[in-house]
């Protein structure tokens, strides 16, 4: 993207619209001081940077109003820039109007300033180190990073503020509760956990909890306990209840202690055996035999056994059987009694268990540590209460010994537990603390939703902070690292460019390339150090000449331009306004070479009043086009032209303008053209203060040099001789125009003036190529030219050889004879 056309109106020295056809090329805009060059540069700045804005208001009353052309009305300043391919930027009284491509170009210009003017060269060196750093840093195109850093910083501050506010609300809420607690139990940290911890400590101190689990559920249980104790005579009731439980356990112990521990299973087996024997046919037959046997007399024979009746023996047998039956009955009774005893004891145990659980707030005795499940399991033992039969069966299954052992152990443990519970009961004089505990727990539980909500907010914000803070710190550090890296790269470029303009090997070069030291403390600083006569100089301004300092300024600008141009969206534009004022032409020539070699990807607009510098620019930079600003007036503004345009304009004037107008236009052409010819043909002119030569001083040396060339080139340049003769009055005409206007019309009537102007045009066209904008110069040297040619060789005059000359002169002689 480059500038194709610029149209300017009513900006500073430009009144009427001036159109520059730049065609995307690099241009040299050359003209004397006060001819409006800088007005063009300022107009470009206004359009591309938005600076140097011409304001409305009373002309000359302020700097802004001075930027408008003083003869124009309000709202009239306007600059239109058309870009190559597409894109347009227009600035005027209505502000900025640009299409997408135009805006992109303008943004690129704002981000990587393409303008450099003489007065800005020392800005960098004169600036404070911190400002220098900011200036360099602004070229790094890290706006998006800086915006992110600002966002991160703002966000972190917001989050921190929110955390602080939430913490304050939470703290106020909790402090209000914490202050109600006895002093030694007030929390050190006013967090919900801190307060809860204090409450559990107080609860433990009052013997209401073991204080091991600190959570909301346990707090609720503790609250219920405290409430029970603190309501009415709750503490006394509790004490009574536990005393009852203690009594129940004591009784149970007494009941359990003498319980029979015989082997009931062995008893049961024996009875079973007896059942079988008593239920056998032996007993029935024995009784039948006995009845019949008894009916017989002693000594008779029994019909059953056939034996002689022996009553004594039979009675003995019956006695034996009867005693066995007696034993069975006794065993049965013993077992029944055994089971009954156990059943009664078990009922008492169950009752005692109910009392203990109720008093101690337990679901069952197994909730007490060290109390195991009963043998046979809880389900089996439920049957013990159903019926005598079931009880006996269950007891046989469980085993009375195991059950007895379990009962004894459980009774002992329960007794110890209750003893502890009673021991833990708060003393009667601590009931006030119990009530406080109850109140605070209630209040805390009431505020649970708010507390948890605030804690959630704080937790989330802390997570955000924990994420944002390291990202901010890492990005900030990375930005500093990258800035240092890139600025070091730029500093190296500056040193390289300086060495190209002031090569270290040169005899009179005692300065060395400046070094830019970037330091990252505070917001960043940039120090410029110099080297003079192989010694380091803290500030180049102390010893560097104005020219050297200007070169430093130019090199910094070029290095920044080179850096920015790596960006694909860069404008690749460079506008240099009189930047070589203090630089001698030898170094300026190296600057031109540097621009040519390293910035051929840029569209460069060079504004200068220095004719020799302009000449060298044209010679050394192929393709550089020239725009001459040949004069300026308040009414018409700058007179812009290249020679082709000026020649065309003069040709038009010849046909229909007054002698004076023809003469003025001719002088604009010839003044500029001869000034350039002075350098191109290395004309020797008398020394003049300020080096401001006009046609008057240059004409005679020019004619002299041309006539010498005519002599060498003969017929090829013969018409030049004639034209010089015809134009001999040029210096006189210039003087007349300047000082003797009244006599001018008498001396130079229109036809004479038109003829002289036509000859001027012919002279220009003979020696200057309007295509490649160069003079037809002697080649190979000025002293022994063989050819006179412009760069494109459209103009080419060949010096005839001696034989050709002889032949030509022989032909002439023959013709004359």
């Amino acid at each position: 993207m480059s500038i194709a056309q610029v149209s300017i109106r009513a900006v500073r020295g430009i009144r009427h619209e001036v159109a520059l056809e730049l065609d995307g090329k690099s241009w040299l805009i050359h003209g004397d001081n006060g001819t409006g060059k800088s007005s063009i540069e300022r107009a470009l700045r206004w359009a591309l940077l938005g600076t140097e804005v011409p304001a409305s208001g009373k002309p000359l009353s302020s700097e802004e109003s001075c930027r408008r052309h003083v003869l124009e009305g309000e709202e009239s300043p306007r600059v239109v820039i058309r870009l190559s391919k597409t894109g347009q930027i227009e600035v005027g009284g209505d502000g900025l109007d640009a299409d997408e491509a135009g805006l992109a170009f303008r943004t690129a210009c704002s981000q990587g300033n393409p303008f450099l003017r003489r007065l800005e060269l020392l800005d960098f060196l004169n600036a404070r180190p911190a400002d220098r750093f900011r200036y360099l840093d602004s070229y790094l195109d890290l706006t998006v990073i800086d915006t992110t850093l600002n966002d991160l910083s703002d966000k972190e501050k917001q989050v921190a503020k929110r955390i602080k506010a939430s913490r304050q609300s939470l703290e106020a809420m909790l402090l209000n509760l914490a202050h109600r607690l006895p002093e030694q139990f007030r929390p050190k940290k006013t967090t919900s956990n801190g307060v809860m911890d204090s409450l559990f400590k107080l609860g433990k101190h009052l013997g209401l909890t073991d204080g091991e689990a600190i959570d909301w559920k346990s707090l609720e249980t503790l609250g219920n306990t405290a409430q029970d104790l603190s309501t009415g005579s709750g503490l006394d009731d509790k004490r009574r209840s536990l005393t009852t439980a203690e009594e129940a356990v004591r009784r149970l112990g007494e009941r359990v202690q003498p319980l029979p521990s015989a082997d009931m299973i062995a008893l049961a087996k024996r009875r079973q055996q007896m059942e079988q024997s008593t239920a056998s046919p032996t007993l029935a037959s024995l009784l039948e035999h006995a009845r019949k046997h008894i009916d017989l007399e002693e000594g008779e024979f029994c019909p059953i056994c056939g034996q002689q009746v022996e009553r004594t023996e039979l009675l003995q047998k019956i006695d034996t059987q009867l005693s066995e039956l007696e034993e069975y009955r006794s065993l049965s009774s013993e077992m029944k009694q055994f089971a009954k005893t156990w059943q009664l004891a078990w009922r008492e145990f169950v009752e005692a268990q109910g009392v203990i659980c109720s008093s101690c707030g337990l679901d069952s005795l197994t909730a007490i540590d060290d109390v195991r499940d009963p043998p046979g399991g809880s389900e089996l033992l439920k049957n013990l209460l159903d019926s005598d039969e079931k009880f006996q069966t269950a007891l046989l299954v469980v085993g009375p010994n195991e059950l007895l052992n379990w009962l004894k152990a459980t009774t002992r443990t329960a007794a110890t537990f209750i003893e502890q519970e009673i021991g833990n009961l708060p003393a009667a004089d601590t009931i006030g603390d119990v009530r406080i505990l109850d109140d605070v727990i209630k209040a805390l539980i009431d505020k649970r939703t708010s507390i948890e909500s605030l804690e959630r907010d704080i937790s989330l914000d802390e997570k955000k902070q924990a994420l944002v803070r390291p990202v901010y710190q890492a990005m900030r550090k990375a930005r500093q690292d990258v800035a240092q890296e890139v600025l070091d790269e730029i500093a190296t470029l500056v040193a390289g460019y300086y060495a190209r303009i002031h090569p270290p090997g040169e005899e009179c070069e005692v300065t060395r390339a400046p070094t830019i030291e970037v330091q990252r403390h505070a917001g960043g600083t940039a120090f410029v150090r110099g080297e003079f006569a192989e010694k380091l100089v803290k500030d180049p301004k102390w010893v560097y000449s104005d020219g050297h300092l200007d070169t430093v300024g130019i090199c910094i600008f070029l290095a920044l331009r080179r850096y920015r141009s790596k960006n694909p969206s860069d404008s690749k534009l460079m506008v240099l306004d009189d930047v070589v004022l203090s630089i001698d032409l030898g170094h300026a020539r190296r600057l031109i070479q540097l621009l040519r070699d390293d910035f051929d990807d840029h569209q460069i607009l060079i504004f200068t009043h220095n004719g020799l510098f302009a000449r060298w620019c044209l010679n050394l930079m192929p393709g550089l086009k020239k725009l001459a600003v040949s004069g300026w007036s308040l009414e018409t503004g700058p007179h812009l032209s290249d020679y082709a345009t000026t020649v065309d304009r003069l040709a038009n004037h010849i046909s229909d303008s007054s002698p004076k107008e023809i003469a003025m236009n001719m002088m604009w052409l010839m003044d500029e053209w001869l000034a350039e010819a002075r350098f191109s043909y290395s004309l020797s002119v008398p020394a003049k203060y300020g080096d401001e030569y006009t046609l008057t001083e240059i004409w005679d040396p020019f004619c002299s040099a041309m006539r010498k060339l005519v002599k060498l080139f003969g017929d090829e340049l013969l018409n030049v001789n004639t034209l010089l003769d015809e134009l001999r009055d040029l210096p006189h005409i210039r003087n007349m125009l300047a000082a003797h206007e009244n006599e001018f019309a008498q001396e130079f009537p229109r036809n004479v003036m038109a003829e002289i102007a036509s000859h001027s045009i012919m002279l220009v066209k003979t020696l200057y190529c309007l295509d490649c904008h160069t003079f037809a110069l002697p080649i190979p040297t000025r002293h022994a030219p063989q050819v006179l040619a412009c760069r494109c060789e459209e103009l080419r005059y060949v010096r005839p050889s001696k034989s050709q000359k002889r032949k030509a002169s022989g032909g002439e002689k023959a013709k004359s004879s």
Partner: protein
Amino acid sequence: MLDPDIIYSDAVQKVIDKTLLDLKQSLPAAHMKAIQRLVDQGEFLDVESILTIAEQDESNTGGEG
């Protein structure tokens, strides 16, 4: 939200790369993974997107209370 198609300048890209390198050492792996995803989507320079990571983290681990 930033346009993921934006091609940042070399300097911006360098800053992002260096930042990520530093964060790898200071952020938990899960957060780093989420940050890398933002970089890939071109949303790393959007602060609200970074905050979303903390919010997602909260919804994954939060809820108890």
